[in-house]
């Protein structure tokens, strides 16, 4: 089982599912590393960006 497995229906609220897709510093991991389908990677990216805005995920590890 890969750590990049996704639940069937996920969105910005599934922070546990999205957390493997960001690095320790908060960057989004590219699709060539995660290996998920292009459609899912687009969805992941969008969800992470919404979750960041709502302070569910960090933008960076440099937040004060």
């Amino acid at each position: 089982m890969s750590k990049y497995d996704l639940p069937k229906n996920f969105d910005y609220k599934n922070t546990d599912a999205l957390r493997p897709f960001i690095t320790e510093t908060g960057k989004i991991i590219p699709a060539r590393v995660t290996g998920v389908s292009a459609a899912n990677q687009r969805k992941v990216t969008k969800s992470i960006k919404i979750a960041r805005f709502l302070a569910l995920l960090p933008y960076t590890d440099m937040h004060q």
Partner: protein
Amino acid sequence: MNKYEAVIILNPNLSTKVDDFLKDFEKLLKDNSFSIVKTEDIGRRQLAYSINNHNKGHYIIFNLEGDPSKLLEIETKIKYNESIIRHLFLVVKKHSDEDSSLFIESKNKKSEPANDDVKVEKVETKEIKADDSANKKGEV
């Protein structure tokens, strides 16, 4: 008519006055012909980064239906409401019937001690049953 999902982060210091806020907000929505399909009060949560010097926020998620033209009026009202530290309206094709994972997470956190007790009891009953079956085997 559009379907919306609204996330609102309240000032954590006003957590006790959430009911008052909900009443006011529902009134604001009704005045603008919005209907509430579902409300999820998630409660206080640690923010991933500080917003306006707040490290915690009270999250509330709404499933709404309403007119896009009226949404602007609601947003201007929200902008000048100082108890709201962040808000987001998302257009969705379909409202999900299930509880959101954030809501389930917050529920689990609240009921953790109760769950532990149940688990302990279950384990004990299982052990007894296992003993019984072992005894029966011995008899046979």
